C-alpha cells in the first residue's frame, strides 16, 4: 500500500525545491558567462573564488540540500525526484520572459509532455508504508 494524502508540507517543500533549482540554474548560467575563456584550471579556480556570484551559488546549494532533506522526510525519493523536472520548464519560461530568448515549438511539446509525466507521478501515493510486511 502507499500513502494517499498529499500533505501541505510536502507541497510547499516541492515548490521551494523547484524555485531554488530554478534560481540556482539561472545564477549559475550568469556566473559561467562571466568566467574567463581559459583552459588553465588554476586561472579558472582563482576566477571562481573571486566571483561573488559563486558565493550565491553555494548558498543556494546549501538551502537546496536542507529543503530537499525535509522533502525526503515526507515522501518517497521516486515520488519527489520527478517533480524537480518542473524546473526545466520554469528555467525555459524565465529564459523567454526575462532574458528574451526564443522558444522552439518542440520545447513547447516537451513542456506539455513533462507536465503530463509529473501529473502521472502525482497520482501515485507519495510514501511507501514500510511496516506493512511486519508480522502481527
Amino acid at each position, binding site marked *: 500500500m502507499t500513502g494517499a494524502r498529499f500533505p501541505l508540507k510536502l507541497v510547499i517543500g516541492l515548490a521551494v525545491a523547484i524555485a531554488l533549482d530554478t534560481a540556482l540554474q539561472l545564477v549559475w548560467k550568469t556566473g559561467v558567462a562571466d568566467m574567463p575563456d581559459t583552459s588553465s584550471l588554476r586561472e579558472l579556480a582563482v576566477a571562481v573564488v573571486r566571483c561573488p556570484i559563486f558565493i550565491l551559488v553555494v548558498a543556494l546549494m546549501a538551502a537546496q540540500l536542507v529543503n530537499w532533506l525535509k522533502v525526503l522526510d515526507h515522501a518517497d525519493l521516486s515520488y519527489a525526484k520527478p517533480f524537480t*523536472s518542473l524546473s*526545466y520548464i520554469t528555467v*525555459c519560461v524565465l529564459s523567454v520572459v526575462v532574458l528574451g530568448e526564443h522558444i522552439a515549438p518542440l520545447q513547447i511539446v*516537451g513542456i506539455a509532455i513533462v*507536465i*503530463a*509525466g509529473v501529473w502521472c*507521478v502525482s497520482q501515485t501515493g507519495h510514501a511507501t508504508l514500510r511496516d506493512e510486511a511486519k508480522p502481527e
Partner: protein
Amino acid sequence: MSSTALGVLLVVVSTMVEGFGQTFLKKSALDVARRHHWILLGVAVLIVEVLLYSGALRFLAVSTAFPITSLSFVMVTLLSHWLLGERVTPLRWAGVGLILIGTSLIVAQA
C-alpha cells in the same frame, strides 16, 4: 574509444552516481540513528557526480551532455525501488518515461 564516446560514458556514469547520492540522502530519513553519516556520504557522492559531469564537458558540448542527464530520473527511480524498497507503480514509471522524453526535448532545443 573516441572522445565523444568517452564524454557520453562519463555523463551516463554521472547520472548513475547521482542516483546513488540521492539514495543515500533518502537513507538519512529512514535510518535516523545514522542520519548525519548518510547525509555526508550523499553529499560526497553528489560532489563526485559534479566532477564527472564537468569532466564530460571537456569532451562534449553542453547541448549534447545536458539531455543525457535526464536519465537521472530513471536511475533514481530504479535505485529507489531496488535499494530502498519503494513501491514504483506502472503509472509512476509512465510518468518518469514521459519526463525523460519531455526534458530531453526541452534541453535539446535550448
